């Protein structure tokens, strides 16, 4: 039976392409994300069972929708729901039947779903996990591992958040024009958080399992908001970061810092995609935080064509970004760029203003940056202390080994 692998591929593709669409459609009509999820997961289980035997249906999305709808009905019947719920369900069934007859098909209500996941009533830390679960159907255990949270805790948080979705508190639709741009920011932040998770631990987002899914969400958002330049920002950022990932380890698996990466190992097609996105966004002439961050990446990859990145441009971009965000992390990156432009001492002076930031005390990149600048400036003892702090805060063993070798090099000086 050579159809089986093809059928499995079809189910997997449907899960990625259609899961969020089907969920948005069902949840909006039955008023419960949880019930829609259960029905959909039954439908996908049925697909895994039936498609290898019966063949992949001509319209996989329709097949999944019809199956999920049956499951929803069964459940409602079992639970003896009140008459109004049945009425809503009948309406959903009519909508579904109509949607399947129309050439446009189901339509795409995923944008509303993304906005609901990043609603102010959802705690900020749960927004990215919620998107990954309701738009892509990723299970809580995988999300928990990527976000460094106990799986039982992550499940609880997701269940609590989903109880709010589709209720009166959080409707599953795109907010009105007046709230759009402020609400869009939280959507963008959550998508980027799904990619970078918590980057405070000297870890490598590429290796953390959900980077591909986050990139896909970024692409979806950029497609759904073609007239919002900022919506292209996170996608461009993620493309730049992914493009560089083949160069982040050498042949022996050792970590290679950005400065020393072999540019011929960067993925130039991904970089081209990022540059095109950034240009398209820039042409709309409404700059924002994510476009600025993507522009900084662009200035870094300019090293492909010239000996050094354009440090002057990078510092100017960080100035603008810092004025907009006031973030100590941005201030840290700006100080490191200043150190490249005007020398390590200038970088250290800028870092000195951040020494009291409590958030940076356990922030690995702060200590790694301080260690590097101190070493270049010839402040050997502070460099040793900062390298040790960075080593003690690092999660990724290859980054830890890299810092250890830098510390060892200092000791021999």
């Amino acid at each position, binding site marked *: 039976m050579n159809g089986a692998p093809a059928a499995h591929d079809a189910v997997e593709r449907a899960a990625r392409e259609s899961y969020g669409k089907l969920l948005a459609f069902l949840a909006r009509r039955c008023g419960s994300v949880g019930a829609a999820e259960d029905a959909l997961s039954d439908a996908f289980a049925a697909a895994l069972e039936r498609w290898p035997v019966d063949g992949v249906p001509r319209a996989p999305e329709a097949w999944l929708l019809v199956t999920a709808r049956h499951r929803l009905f069964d459940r409602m019947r079992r639970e003896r729901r009140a008459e109004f719920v049945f009425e809503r369900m009948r309406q959903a069934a009519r909508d579904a039947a109509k949607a399947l007859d129309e050439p446009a098909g189901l339509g795409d209500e995923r944008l509303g779903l993304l906005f609901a996941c990043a609603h102010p009533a959802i705690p900020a830390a749960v927004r990215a996990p919620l998107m990954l679960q309701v738009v892509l159907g990723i299970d809580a255990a995988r999300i928990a591992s990527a976000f*460094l*949270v*106990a799986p039982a*805790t992550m499940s609880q948080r997701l269940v609590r958040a989903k109880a709010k979705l589709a209720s009166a508190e959080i409707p599953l639709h795109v907010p009105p024009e007046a709230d759009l741009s402020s609400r869009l920011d939280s959507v963008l932040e959550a998508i980027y958080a799904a990619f970078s998770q*918590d980057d405070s*631990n000297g870890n490598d987002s590429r290796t953390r399992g959900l980077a591909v899914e986050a990139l896909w969400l970024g692409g979806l958002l950029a497609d759904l908001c073609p007239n919002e330049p900022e919506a292209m920002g996170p996608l461009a950022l993620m493309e730049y970061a992914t493009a560089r990932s083949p160069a982040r380890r050498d042949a022996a698996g050792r970590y290679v810092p950005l400065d020393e990466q072999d540019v011929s190992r960067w993925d130039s097609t991904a970089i081209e995609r990022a540059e095109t996105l950034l240009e398209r966004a820039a042409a709309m002439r409404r700059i924002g935080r994510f476009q600025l961050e993507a522009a900084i990446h662009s200035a870094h990859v300019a090293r492909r064509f010239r000996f050094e990145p354009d440090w002057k441009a990078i510092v100017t971009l960080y100035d603008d970004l810092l004025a907009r965000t006031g973030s100590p992390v941005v201030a840290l990156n700006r100080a490191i760029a200043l150190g490249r432009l005007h020398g390590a001492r200038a970088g250290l002076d800028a870092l000195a203003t951040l020494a009291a930031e409590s958030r940076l*005390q*356990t922030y690995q990149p702060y200590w790694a940056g301080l260690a590097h600048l101190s070493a270049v400036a010839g402040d050997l003892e502070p460099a040793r202390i900062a390298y*040790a*702090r960075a*080593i*003690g*805060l*690092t*999660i*990724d*063993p290859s980054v*830890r*080994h890299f810092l*250890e070798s830098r*510390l060892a090099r200092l000791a021999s000086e």
Partner: protein
Amino acid sequence: MKYILLLNDEEKRWATMPNDVMQREMGAYQAYTKALEEAGAYAGGNRLEGSTTAATVRVGPDGRTSVLDGPYADTKEQLGGFYVIEAPDMDTAIAWAARCPCASSGAVEVRPIAPMPVAV
């Protein structure tokens, strides 16, 4: 809140480790301990002697005692040390556990320490 981090690692790996790797590993643990201290999160910890030095003791309902050589659980990785840390919540405790060098060579179990019942 106090949490205990139980460090489980392969003793065999440590026993056969070349000297320079051993130096580096010890340095990583020292750096980790220092990072905990500087963050005000360190509340104690120790290395344990090898599991072959362990003895496991039980007393039956009839008072009969049994003492066996070796650790309580016979697994591929052995309990080799622990940290007690102060953290505001389980998420923070898990983040500290991930930074522990043992998390990338073996496994770290994180458990909240139950408060002592107040004596009456």
